[in-house]
């Protein structure tokens, strides 16, 4: 479904991604782990088009993504839930979800999506008319994920959904993600610093350091890799 080949991105001469290649098949749950600043967020941003690509290819369902302007990519079925949540703080929860449903498919499926979302996160139903900026961190993360779902995406990209959340809250978010994937049969691409949780939920994973893929494999291969265990799992 998503194919990345030899992708390079640089900020002002400093290289952020260095010939990264990865593949996401339809229906897969793929996790990407790595230390802070390894280039995970940059990878996501280059998929959704908010950073310029220096060289390499990104194809989505056979189409060359790089040639498509960033604001048209969500209309192809890519939902990006950004790092740090980035809800629209001065819009109400419902307006946030409406913006999530800005795409054609999102408007078409609005009623059923809304029902699914409010069932998944009942708290958001209570807070519908509240400004999103006044919600707690965990609730904002729910809004951000729900906003991504509201577009009826084929590919859901989640960037550090646990960031800044207490472990218990983060756990419930991970559970919700697994539930969403089951219920909607989505393809999920997850970036996480919490390597344990990320690798446990996924089918396949990649380890990224300083803008390169240093390791890739099936879930159990990664979880049993001695170096991964030492560097990321704290063993």
């Amino acid at each position, binding site marked *: 479904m998503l194919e990345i080949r030899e992708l390079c991105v640089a900020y*002002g*001469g*400093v290289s952020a991604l260095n010939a990264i290649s990865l593949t996401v098949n339809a229906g897969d749950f793929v996790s990407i782990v790595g230390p*802070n*600043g390894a280039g995970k967020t940059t990878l996501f941003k280059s998929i959704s088009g908010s950073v310029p690509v220096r060289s390499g290819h990104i194809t989505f369902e056979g189409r060359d993504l790089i040639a498509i302007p960033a604001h048209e990519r969500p209309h192809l079925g890519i939902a990006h839930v950004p790092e740090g949540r980035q809800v629209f703080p001065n819009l109400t929860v419902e307006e946030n979800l409406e913006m999530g449903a800005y795409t054609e498919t999102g408007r078409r499926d609005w009623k059923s999506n809304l029902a699914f979302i409010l069932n998944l996160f009942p708290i958001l139903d209570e807070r519908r008319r509240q400004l999103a900026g006044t919600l707690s*961190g965990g609730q904002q993360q729910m809004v951000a994920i729900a906003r991504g779902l509201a577009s009826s995406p084929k590919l859901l990209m989640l960037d550090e959904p646990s960031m800044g959340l207490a*472990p218990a809250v983060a756990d419930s978010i991970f559970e919700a993600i697994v539930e969403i994937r089951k219920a909607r049969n989505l393809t999920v691409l997850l970036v996480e610093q919490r390597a344990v949780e990320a690798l446990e939920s996924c089918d396949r994973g990649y380890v990224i350091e*300083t803008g390169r893929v240093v390791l890739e494999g099936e879930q159990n291969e990664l979880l049993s890799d001695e170096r991964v265990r030492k560097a990321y799992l704290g063993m």
Partner: protein
Amino acid sequence: MGSRTTFMQSLGILAVLSAVYLLLVFIVPNQYYQLMLTLVAIWAVMGISWNVLSGYSGLVSFGHAAFFGLGAYTVALGLLHFNLSPWIGLPLAGLVGAVAGIIVGLPTFRLRGHYFALAMLAYPLALLYVFEWLGYQEVALPMNRENPAAYMQFSDGRIYSVIALVLLVIAVLVSRWIETTRFGMALLAIKQNELAAEAAGIETRKWKLRAIAISGAIAGAIGGFYAVILIVVTPASVFSMLTSAQALIVALFGGIGTVWGPVIGAAILIPLSETLHAELGNILPGIQGVVFGTAIVLVILLAPEGIFWKIRDLITRSDRDGRSGEAPVATALVDAGELLERPEAMAGKTVLEVKGLSKSFGGLKAVQDVSFKVPEGAVIGIIGPNGAGKTTLFNMLNGFHTPSSGEVIFEGENLVGLQPSGVCKRGIGRTFQVARPFARLSVLDNVLVGAYVRADDDATALRHAREALALVGMEKDAERTAGGLPSKEQRLMELARALAGKPKILLLDEILAGLGSSEINEVIVVLRKLTESGITILIIEHTMQAMLRLADHFIVLDHGALLGEGKPRNIMRDPKVIEAYLGRRWRERA
């Protein structure tokens, strides 16, 4: 600075330029061209004045007409009411400009960014109305027929050009002196990141006030001279927005942040607009403004920092491109190495003591009643989830924030209430989450910025900077341009900048972020070496594995409160810490 030409070299350039200027003055055919040459010098000086404040420090002023106009009226009214010769009036106008600069600067420097620019816009416009109301709609400088030379009145226009040249030379020298000393370094650091500059021990407010005083003095003096040239002064001619804009435009067009920028800008734009005004002024009355407006628009779109830098970048581009392609060292997952325990590390005498420290923003309690002691030579790791108050704690330790309550005792002195520069002077250095190097400067110059705080003269500062580079193992990179450094080198450079101030305590905020595991090991080795030389380190870090190998002692924050402290091994088994920070899966796996 930016260019490494020395002060003497610039004297040479200045001598050549002056000679060319004088030659032009004596060969141009008539008064009209002489006047134009005089105006070129006047606006070059005005551009330099703007550049001294806004170009070097990054605080954009739209209000330089205020100083210019006050200078013009000082000379005009001095001559009219007190028979004061412009020979005395000019220095006086400079003084008035300097005082006005300080009066304007004192309140206005509290503002940042857009607000500063907007507030500056208001001063000359307010003065414009005040001078109209005072009845000075039109002040003519009276002619003195008995002794014209004593009143700066000459029939030969070339003499005015020579005076203008002298003023220009003075302005260039002053500006160049700023560029080549710690004054310029301080302003550049402010431009890049004012908070980081303050944390590096630079007394930002003092330097900004000095800059605006000098800038105001130059503008006032040249405004006074402008009055002499024009003979008639009106509020609209000296306080108008076009005056402020013209100062900004010549500097911006020629090149911002370098003394040669305004000179280049004035030499191109003034003859252009004057000629158009003379040729087309009757049919197209606003042509000057249109030319200047178009010049700004084009410069912003095509060469946002001015012609000087555009050309310079074109010349140096090939050089830089070669470097940026340099790939980081091949990375692979590296064995994380063994935990290192230093049983005696926590036995030193207490160098820093935090007592009951709290900070609230509005209703939010960012840090609540945190107390701990730091022994000399220890490495204290501060851990906790995002938003736990770790960075806020650092901000209170180095003086960015004044605590709502509590004390920070360093070597027996309470640091609460000190400016960050004061804290730095006493020996607490820090690095930041987001490194912001001065991209155009060399690594050595970047480090030098941090060295001035403990150095009385430039030579000592330079020595401290080199020593700091040696400490982090970057002596060989001293002359490289900072812009293209890979992230590990950028981090080490920032560490060196903090070390150049000879700190006793270092506050390191996520210095390992963005590094690969082998690079993390290299930085850890450097940090270990520092602790052996007796420096105490407080470090915020998310990479637990690195922290376990580096810290002698952990302090855990959660929701602003101290959740626990102790030996890293013990902390990792503390159920409270696991619950709040590490997560239940950590426990399951561990």
